[in-house]
């Protein structure tokens, strides 16, 4: 049982804490992966989460699940790390890689086709990462959880500790900014294509 494991760890049983790490590291990695894409950064963040969890074991009262408690620590730890990082001011069409350019070109043709290749997914993920990097980390998280993982407003509020109205505002703002950035990219690309045709 989760609660027994937490009680044992609180009493200083290291093997119980090790079992918590083993059992919940996939969940913590999944949260950290939402923030970072490099393995080393994800591992570093996840380790920090568990070290923090160990020192805060006393604050776990057993009312919720260990998973929920760790998810909240993970979200806040990763947000803190990201807040310290420098944010991009803008993402323009000139920042697109060759693969991303090609991916955008192919999109109208693949409309409705849900089966995408692994490589295509990676390129799209890279593009998402770079487009999201202009948003505040909190807005990125709200959007990735709601639109990416189908989390409810309440679930995001629980994981982050924000109010539900704050989550809604953040998601709305992030969605609009992302759409506008994408629109701008598409417009630039269409403009460039037209120029090429005229030549």
């Amino acid at each position: 049982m989760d609660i027994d494991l937490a009680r044992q760890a609180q009493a200083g049983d290291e093997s119980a804490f090790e079992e918590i790490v083993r059992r919940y590291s996939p969940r913590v990695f999944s949260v950290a992966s939402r923030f970072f894409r490099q393995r080393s950064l994800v591992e570093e963040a996840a380790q920090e989460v568990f070290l923090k969890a160990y020192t805060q074991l006393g604050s776990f009262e057993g009312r919720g699940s260990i998973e929920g408690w760790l998810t909240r620590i993970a979200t806040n730890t990763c947000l803190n790390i990201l807040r310290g990082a420098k944010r991009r001011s803008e993402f323009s069409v000139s920042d697109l890689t060759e693969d991303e350019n090609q991916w955008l070109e192919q999109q109208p043709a693949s409309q409705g086709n849900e089966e995408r290749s692994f490589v295509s997914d990676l390129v799209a993920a890279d593009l998402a990462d770079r487009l999201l990097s202009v948003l505040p980390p909190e807005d990125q998280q709200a959007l990735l959880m709601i639109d990416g993982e189908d989390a409810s407003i309440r679930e995001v509020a629980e994981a982050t500790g924000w109010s539900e109205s704050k989550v809604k505002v953040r998601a709305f703002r992030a969605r609009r900014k992302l759409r506008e950035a994408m629109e701008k990219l598409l417009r630039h690309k269409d403009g460039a294509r037209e120029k090429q045709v005229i030549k």
Partner: protein
Amino acid sequence: MKEKHITEILDNASIVSLSESELNEIRAHAEDCVSCRGAYEAARLSAVVIRSRVKSTIEPSPFFHTRVMAALREQQAVESVPAMLRLWGSAKSLVSSMAVATAALAVLSFALPSPAIPASDQAVSAYSAESVLLGQANDDQMSYEQVMSTIYDDDEAK
């Protein structure tokens, strides 16, 4: 619906969570409205990239828990060392370099022979910094003995 722009609907919820009737309304409007068509296409692609981004998660390595436990033990070891010892550990080099500098100054001050001071300078030394600090010459005016010794020393020198 045809007259109303659709950007508000697109920003309120993910495009994948919209119902078929909502999507039909959006498409119908986008057919006639160029700016909304662009917004709809951008929202559709945004949803695709967000889904792809979330799909790419990193799994923990089989040794991750070992790494965490090692880091935990290391942290505990650091915390178990008394604070004064930790302070000493970080200040050790600074303290030892200060001790060396003090010793070097002491050697320079006491072990090396001091240069010969002319008699006239010795008389003036009644006003030296040491004597002032030690309170031997608190007054601004010279004492009687100092005046006399100054006169006779000068006479003898001549």
